[in-house]
């Protein structure tokens, strides 16, 4: 893919997302691939708050807001309703954050994946409940300090490993599932294109760093999304027709370089004396 080939038109603009928001960049790029014949279904999250709160409505495509657990169920309803109305040309894109996907949205997503409807589900993963102030979710990585896994005497941040959502999704034997990072836009866009062409449910979980939630300067969003992959903290994986592929990291970096740029991991560096 060459950058010039991406649609020039913007389908989300003027949102109230924080400066340097990784999630809004992920959604912006996704809509460039999916195009104007798309309906977004989204759920209480940063995205809903910053794009669909009157009087600042930032989408140029239709957007249906639904309760927190319901994204994928409403997606199924839209797919069925549009088909019944002879408007299958409208693509249905469910978008939820990590909490709305791996925690409260999991049951409805599992149902929709298993029913085999044709839709794309985009999980923008900023690794905690950022919209409510940064509480841990099932997608928070081991060791991260969050509002509900604070660091203190005898507490070293999140004490459970990140939920392996991609394998849970793939276990539904859907045509396409992938993880991506906004630090690797060509890879992300290629995966979105595959998702569009999939004959059934397609799932993409994209890493979207969050400046206030992770504690870093807003210009580092893309850099961190890239470094996460280089430091082995995020895999660019793909599940297609029953086979897995993982992108090889071309220039691996030490994990401490990734940790050092974010407040949520600061205690790990102090502990290891900066040796990482």
């Amino acid at each position: 893919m060459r950058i010039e080939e991406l649609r020039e038109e913007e389908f989300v603009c003027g949102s109230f997302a924080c400066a340097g928001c990784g999630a809004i960049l992920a959604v912006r790029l996704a809509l460039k691939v999916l195009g104007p014949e798309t309906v977004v279904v989204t759920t209480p999250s940063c995205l809903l708050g910053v794009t669909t709160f009157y009087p600042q409505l930032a989408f140029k495509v239709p957007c249906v807001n639904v309760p927190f657990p319901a994204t994928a169920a409403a997606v199924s309803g839209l797919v069925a309703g549009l088909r019944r109305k002879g408007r299958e040309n409208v693509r249905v894109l469910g978008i939820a954050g990590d909490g709305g996907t791996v925690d409260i949205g999991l049951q409805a997503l599992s149902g929709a994946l298993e029913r085999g409807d044709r839709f794309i589900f985009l999980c923008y993963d900023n690794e905690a409940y950022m919209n409510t102030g940064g509480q841990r979710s099932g997608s928070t990585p081991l060791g991260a300090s969050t509002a509900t896994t604070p660091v203190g005497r005898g507490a070293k941040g999140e004490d459970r490993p990140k939920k392996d959502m991609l394998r849970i999704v793939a276990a539904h034997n859907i045509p396409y599932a992938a993880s991506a990072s906004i630090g690797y836009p060509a890879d992300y866009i290629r995966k979105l294109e595959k998702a569009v062409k999939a004959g059934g449910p397609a799932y993409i979980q994209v890493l979207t760093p969050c400046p206030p939630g992770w504690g870093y300067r807003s210009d580092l969003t893309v850099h961190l999304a890239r470094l996460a992959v280089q430091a082995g903290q995020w895999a660019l994986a793909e599940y297609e027709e029953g086979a897995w592929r993982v992108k090889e990291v071309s220039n691996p970096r030490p994990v401490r370089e990734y940790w050092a740029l974010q407040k949520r991991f600061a205690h790990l560096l102090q502990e290891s004396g900066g040796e990482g």
Partner: protein
Amino acid sequence: MIPVLPTPHLSSRTGAWRMLRPVLEAEKCNGCLVCWLFCPEGSIRRENGSVSIDLDYCKGCGICARECPRRALRMVEEASFMGEGGGKLA
């Protein structure tokens, strides 16, 4: 009243949040479009192989300047533009 509202509908220009303004040095730019690609707000305009910055919704995050491979963008204190026109928008 049915809670269905036409979109987009933008009541405020988020460029007013900006503390740092991206300034393009056109002679360094080769039109690679990396800044356009990575701008979360879609505030970079691309035309005929060159780019320009639409400040209405640019929040000054600085991703464009950091990611530019030719260092053709600099982040400049917004305050230094006061009174020059094109300053903060309501």
